[in-house]
């Protein structure tokens, strides 16, 4: 028995830089069953209505990662997004190219920055030359070692995370969620000998520009959870190098801050992160805020039960600097 079809309106972004003066949206109407993948709809448009539509795709099975695009503003794979749910939520399906990568034509984007960041983290095992991997033999790993990879080996490099990332949008020096999740994958690999070097390099290399918004984790079709692995990387980087960057100084400064009163002392944190010189640079803004909110200069109330907090710190915050 064939399912009932529904009318589906696609509004598809069309743009050929150098030829078109501005992007436009072209509307196509198809009758499709609710379970039809968005990609199938787009291919019908290309094959039956408008052969000039440019898009990337290959496997149609959420394996190759080629067909990531924005579907009603969310970055996801067109092959695993069904038209019915989109129409039910939004009335129609707005299709746009991924963000943070320049449009080459229609839905095809230039992935150069995405791949450049990937290659920068050197996504391959760096082995000890004195201890080469045994030829033709597997390197055994314990279940605990395998567990440390978390979900990172699932990544199909579709770039949906990069498209969804507000840090990549605002600052091209951020490596992006995928590159950092890959870095994590190599940093926890017991066969890799470059762990420390990798972590030393990534601290000033943009690690601390991640804002923990978790939009990458929302976008990822394979549940790689890049934002959580980036958080792990930050802890690993601090363990190797201590608080040397603005970001790590802020994280460690925050942790130390609570030891005094159990509540945040805002001014003390700014001083810990920015130093006196940095504070001077923020003086103007500080005064503007202080005039409306004088409490920013005030020490917070000390919580009751500080002794409990102190004991928790003593139990769990013992220094574990690994040193480079």
């Amino acid at each position, binding site marked *: 028995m064939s399912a009932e079809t529904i009318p589906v309106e696609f509004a598809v972004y069309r743009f050929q830089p150098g030829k078109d003066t501005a992007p436009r949206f072209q509307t196509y109407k198809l009758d499709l069953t609710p379970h039809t993948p968005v990609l199938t709809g787009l291919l019908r448009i290309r094959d039956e209505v408008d052969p000039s539509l440019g898009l990337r795709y290959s496997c149609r099975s959420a394996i190759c990662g080629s067909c990531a695009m924005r579907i009603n503003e969310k970055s996801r794979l067109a092959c695993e997004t069904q038209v019915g749910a989109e129409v039910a939520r939004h009335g129609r399906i707005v299709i746009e190219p991924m963000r943070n990568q320049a449009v080459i034509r229609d839905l095809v984007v230039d992935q150069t920055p995405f791949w450049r960041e990937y290659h920068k983290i050197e996504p391959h095992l760096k082995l000890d030359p004195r201890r080469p991997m045994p030829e033709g033999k597997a390197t055994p790993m314990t279940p605990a070692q395998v567990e440390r990879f978390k979900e990172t080996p699932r990544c199909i490099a579709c770039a949906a995370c990069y498209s969804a990332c507000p840090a990549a*949008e605002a600052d091209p020096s951020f490596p992006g969620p995928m590159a950092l999740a890959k870095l994590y994958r190599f940093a926890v690999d017991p066969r890799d000998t470059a762990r420390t070097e990798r972590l030393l390099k990534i601290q000033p290399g943009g690690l601390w*520009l991640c804002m923990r918004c978790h939009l990458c984790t929302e976008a990822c079709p394979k549940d790689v959870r890049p934002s959580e692995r980036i958080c792990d990387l930050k*802890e690993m980087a601090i363990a190797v190098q201590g608080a040397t960057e603005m970001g790590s100084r802020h994280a460690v400064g925050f942790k130390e801050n609570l030891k005094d009163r159990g509540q945040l002392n805002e001014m003390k944190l700014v001083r810990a992160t920015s130093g006196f010189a940095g504070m001077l640079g923020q003086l103007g803004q500080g005064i503007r805020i202080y005039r409306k909110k004088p409490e920013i200069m005030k020490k917070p109330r000390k919580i009751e039960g500080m002794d409990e907090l102190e004991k928790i710190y003593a139990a769990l915050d013992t220094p574990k600097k690994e040193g480079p």
Partner: protein
Amino acid sequence: MKIAYYPGCLAQESAKELDMATRFVCRTLGIELVEFPNFSCCGSGFIDEANEALNIAINARNLAIAEKAGLDVLTICSTCQGMLQLARVRMQDPAMRSRVDAALKPIGIEYKGTAHVKHLLQVLTEDIGLDAVKAKVRRPLQGLKVGAFYGCHLLRPADEMESESGEEPHSFEDLLSVIGATPVDYRGRVMCCGFPIQFVKPSTASNVAGRQILDAKRHGADAMATPCPLCHLSLDAYQNKAAKEVHEHLDMPVFHLPQVVALAFGASPEELGLSRHLVRTDAALAKVRAAPPA
């Protein structure tokens, strides 16, 4: 209803106006706030970056305090909500659980996981209910177009937050509608405010904030409203910086969530500390006053 009030650091100090508005709303709706002077800061996500187990333990301690009193926890900050809820989720992992328990048990703290953590937005829309909220509206915010700004940690990661859909949330817009305002639909409503890197790289942080404010403005918002005082800092206190980054005149009043609700309940601007905002709210308030009665 009776609930453990977890105001968070900011609402006790530089965002006092948020605490004022929260108390007004809860008083009006008969929500009894039970206060615990031993609650500590949630770590704001930063302690999680420096030391995950410590972060979980600090918040397991906070949760245990409410549990002992048999109460759920009310938060008024998306980040506090996210961190307390994160502790609940991570404490389900046996390895983390035993590490944290080993630190808590010797000092007589037992974490059971029985207390739920609810942001005021959830309490208003789910526990109290929109009908009951509507019944208390004395001055509908007719004519005011408001861009809801959720704050990341209230929504994501969705599978851990035990809240509505992180991708397509609508509770805030539903709430704005019952208090008479017109919610504005814009992409930025679920985006990041940039605050976590305000001290790491201010220009990038303000660029992120500026994009969201500009997006709300271009979609016709007269004001924005947020359930998170950190977002409020980024969107209001640093709005001048955000405007510079996006090269636009923004002038966007930003309310705390309970402020818009309290305004509709008849609170005066003074009762809500509106003069403590950096971007003036007068123009938005004038819109409400000028609107014809519903």
